[in-house]
């Protein structure tokens, strides 16, 4: 998830209890992977506010465990303690088994982890998490073709898993298989037609593919993204880039050229307005105006 960079200070400095609880909740809800911060705040919350947390503490243990795995080996004791507490509270839980699987993955015990995930799938085939971990293991081993194949099989059954369509799109982009990546984002657009980020992503891939037809399509998708969210600066730059390219690609009639130029000028104005509204420094503003001029059609 894209976020602003953070301060260097400890995350629990001057935070009140409700702030701490709400921050951890927000990170759980949005699946934010800021593991250092989660470990700092999670350990602090469980040490000082365990009784305030009540039953929510089990969700925090799970969250802390996953984050601590990212900081191993130094946080292995934290991982072990979290798994132990959760196993005591929830014996035979699939979610606790997932954490044990993640621990095996950290230790690079791939065969044992795969065995564990396969037996979980056999026991409960409708639980999506172990399928995804199998894909992650292939990725970690550098077996990208196997990861793609496994993920495709998973999505045949679990076609509503949007996180997986995004992951598959990323895997295809990494292999420069842009047409397959487009297909994945199309699935997302079908399920979430009002998500400006998916429209923008689709446009990015089309623009990267290049060629007149793809640029025309990318321009439309960038415009849709900007319509859904006028603050999506990437979409606005995308409109500017694609319409500038279309104004000069191949033989275009004067009318078509003029239309593209008008659209490019609109996008440049919107970007300039956005920078002004955000009150950026004067020097940044001047440089931005110069850049917009360079990116505009001549």
């Amino acid at each position: 998830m894209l976020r602003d960079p953070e301060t260097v200070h400890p995350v629990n400095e001057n935070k009140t209890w409700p702030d701490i609880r709400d921050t951890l909740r927000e990170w759980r809800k949005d699946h934010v992977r800021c593991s250092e911060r989660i470990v700092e705040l999670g350990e602090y919350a469980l040490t000082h506010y365990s009784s305030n947390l009540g039953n929510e503490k089990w969700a925090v243990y799970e969250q802390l465990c996953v984050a601590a795995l990212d900081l191993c080996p130094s946080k292995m004791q934290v991982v072990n303690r979290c798994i132990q507490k959760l196993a005591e509270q929830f014996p035979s839980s699939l979610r606790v088994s997932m954490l044990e699987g993640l621990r095996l993955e950290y230790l690079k015990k791939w065969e044992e982890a795969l065995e564990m995930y396969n037996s979980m799938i056999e026991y409960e085939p409708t639980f999506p998490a172990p399928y995804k971990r199998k894909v992650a293991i292939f990725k970690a081993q550098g077996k990208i073709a196997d990861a793609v194949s496994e993920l495709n099989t998973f999505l045949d059954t679990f076609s509503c898993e949007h996180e997986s369509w995004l992951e598959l799109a990323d895997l295809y982009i990494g292999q420069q298989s842009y047409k397959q990546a487009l297909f994945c984002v199309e699935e997302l657009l079908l399920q979430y037609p009002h998500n400006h980020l998916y429209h923008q992503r689709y446009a990015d891939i089309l623009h990267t593919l290049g060629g007149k037809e793809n640029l025309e399509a990318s321009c439309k998708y960038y415009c849709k993204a900007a319509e859904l969210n006028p603050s999506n600066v990437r979409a606005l730059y995308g409109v500017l880039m694609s319409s500038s390219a279309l104004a000069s690609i191949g033989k275009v009639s004067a009318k078509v050229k003029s239309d593209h130029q008008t659209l490019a000028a609109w996008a440049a104005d919107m970007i300039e307005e956005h920078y002004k509204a955000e009150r950026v420094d004067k020097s940044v503003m001047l440089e931005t105006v110069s850049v917009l001029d360079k990116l505009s059609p001549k």
Partner: protein
Amino acid sequence: MTEEVQLSLRAYAKILSHAVQNPYTAVNGVLLSPEDEDKERLDVVDVVPLFHYNTSLSPMLTVALTQIEEYATNRSLRIAGYYHGNEHHDDNEVGFVAARIADKIVENCETGCLLIINNTLLNHLATELPFRVFHPIRSTDRIDWKEGDKPRLQFGERGLARGPEIMKTHLYRSLVDMDHHYDNVRCSWDNGALNEAVKLFSESLPVSQEE
């Protein structure tokens, strides 16, 4: 062909911070050197971190490079190369994407280099720089990247000690890259605050020991 590359402490701090701030994704960025270059040595005085997401899609890369060219020209600097850290911990090679972006970046400059972050050396910051350097070998229709010597670091070993300090003080958390900027244009990718912090590091080192 220029073989020697020197990294300023500021450039090192930013590349390291970019990699450590985003341990789960690929990262990339642009190297900057003074306009009036020394042909014997490539002096990387600063960098601009580009992306930690969408490192390989073209539209925002073109926009970002145009912004950085404008920024560099206004400060008597030039774009002198490209750095890339692969997503996978064990992958320290020049991948297809890194090579193609580096090709594009150096095609208009006489001297330039490609810096690959060696992920496995990020655990050994106190003893060596975590980079591999590649130089362009140009033929009529392509550029091949040939590995050269490791870069030198401003202040030598005393500069190297700043790496672990950046980790310990969590200075890397405040680094702004172009992705952050496009999420929120108020975030400034020239990283003034981080530049100041690195300046304080260097001012604490005796001038006579600068190498």
